[in-house]
């Protein structure tokens, strides 16, 4: 038995995706019982490191969902998760707020009657009811939403909580939950899947620091990459920069790209268009470097520099290097 399941998003080599650690930290506070993990056995098995980490975070069980059908297809995975909810008696599923998991959540909602909250940044139980915090309208409003149904699916944004280990580490019990998918769920075929190669930098969606470039870079991201590397951060971009092909589409921050809420956002040559702000306005501290004193990004910047990025950014990088010694 378990109250709460956490979907363990992972890489093709069986390593945990960064935000999963936050989900487990949150889940522990919502239950007196154990936190159970759900591992979609999509070809990758949990690595030894992943299991150790999960144990340190307090995950007591890892359920490997296996099927004759392709568990990478959200409709298929949903059927496995429904079975697991039944088998474990869990009433809540937490997953990382990503487009794939939104798809999964929609199927779960239709199949189980679950209420779904996306892009959550806080969770608590109030008199037995799950209450979820989320920031909406491009980071300008905060809301608290109650889930009224017996089953709840909550998709949590990265950088919502500080990860902490469980009081006592455990050795997670790894089990298999094999299921047969319906013909309906298998109607979508994954013809091709190409995982993006690791960049050596943190994932954009969960990085604590993000350095972002826009049209003002005129296509040269070298200085921004150097800054990101000194800071141990990720590199992001506006849609103009990705459309121009200066950097991959996966670097696009905004309403139709990645939504981020890092501790520190640095935007250089970024005007701060509303579509872009929608994906970054919830960041902790916002720094903007722009030649135009009227650029809208200055309306939301904690520290704004009216200046040319080609001189300000290298100077910043050099000074940070010097201060770090």
């Amino acid at each position, binding site marked *: 038995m378990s109250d709460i399941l956490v979907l363990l998003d992972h890489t093709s080599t069986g390593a945990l995706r960064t935000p999963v650690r936050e989900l487990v930290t949150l889940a522990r506070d919502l239950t007196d019982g154990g936190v159970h993990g759900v591992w979609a056995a999509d070809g990758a098995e949990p690595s030894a490191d992943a299991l150790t980490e999960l144990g340190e975070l307090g995950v007591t069980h890892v359920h490997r969902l296996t099927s004759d059908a392709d568990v990478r297809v959200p409709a298929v995975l949903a059927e496995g998760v429904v079975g697991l909810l039944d088998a474990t008696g869990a009433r809540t599923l937490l997953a990382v707020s990503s487009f794939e998991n939104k798809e999964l959540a929609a*199927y779960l909602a239709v199949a189980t009657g679950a209420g779904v909250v996306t892009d959550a940044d806080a969770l608590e139980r109030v008199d037995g009811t799950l209450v979820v915090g989320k920031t909406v309208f491009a980071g300008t*409003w905060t809301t608290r939403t109650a889930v009224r149904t017996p089953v709840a699916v909550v998709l949590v944004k990265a950088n919502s909580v500080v990860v902490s280990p469980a009081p006592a580490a455990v050795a997670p019990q790894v089990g298999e939950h094999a299921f047969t998918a319906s013909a309906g769920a298998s109607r979508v075929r994954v013809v091709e899947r190409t995982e993006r190669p690791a960049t050596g930098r943190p994932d954009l969606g969960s990085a604590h620091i993000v350095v972002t470039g826009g049209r003002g870079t005129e296509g040269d991201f070298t200085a921004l990459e150097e800054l990101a590397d000194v800071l141990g951060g990720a590199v992001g971009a506006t849609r103009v920069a990705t459309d121009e092909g200066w950097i991959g589409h996966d670097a696009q921050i905004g309403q139709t790209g990645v939504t981020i809420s890092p501790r520190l956002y640095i935007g250089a040559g970024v005007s701060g268009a509303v579509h872009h702000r929608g994906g970054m306005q919830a960041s902790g501290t916002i720094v903007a470097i722009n030649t135009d004193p009227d650029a809208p990004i200055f309306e939301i910047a904690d520290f704004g520099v009216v200046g040319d990025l080609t001189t300000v950014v290298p100077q910043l990088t050099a000074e940070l290097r010097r201060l770090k010694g």
Partner: protein
Amino acid sequence: MTRSIVVRVRWANRPRCTGASEGNVPDVKIVVCVKHVPDIQSDRQIADGRTVRDGGDGTLNELDENALESALSLVEAAGEGEVVVLTVGPDDAVDAVRKGLQMGADEAVHVVDEAIAGSDAIATARVLAAAITHVGGADLVVTGMAGLDGLTSLVPAAVAALLDVPALPLAAQLEVTGSTVRVTRHLDHASEVLEAQLPALVSVTDQANEPRYPNFKGIMAARKKPVTTLTLADLGLDATLVGAAGARTEVLEAAPRPAREDRVLVTDTGDAGVRLAAYLVENQLV
């Protein structure tokens, strides 16, 4: 980067997801779901746990223009087929389907009922699915990737599940060959090519195409095109399943976030990079 939509359509004669009667092969039909949302450039508000939707500055959700563009170009490439544009929302929402007609859709359906107010994503999907069934089903349902107000992206897959058709969300490229629909999509960590047979549902991203602007001819023609208004009763939907009554989630509180305090703006006179570094260190951000 080029924004291209690959269109190679040869519609097969095949049954719709619902509604088609036997022996009577209907014209190809695409239903495009469009949402009416508060303008994202406006000062958006929440009152009593709901988005204020009567501020007068509502518009067609920009991302649904991409959905319309995909549907229209598929029909144009195929040389046959009709496009029905569908919205669920209050009285003003009719503007969203009107814009769809101006862009070139053939028919519009607007589901409006007081009982729908306060619907969550799944309740909205229920109404959309019922409306699609009511108009005789579709060979293809096309949606946007997200509503720019709710931004849940839950509706497309939920509609597909309720209609019992495969969903291929987030198409950056969309191709229909015969009765096979193929989608290329870019997720956070991977790119995928998905395939399914029609009838199906796809959602398209803003990468999929460059939406057309309605021209004068389109605007004039739209005036003569039919807009069907439907209520929950018309759809045979129980009012307790939708709206605030049927909502599985309930907004308890909403408040504007306080403005950022202690903001600093400096003009570079040669040392801004150094000053910025000092600020970051002082605030323990690095």
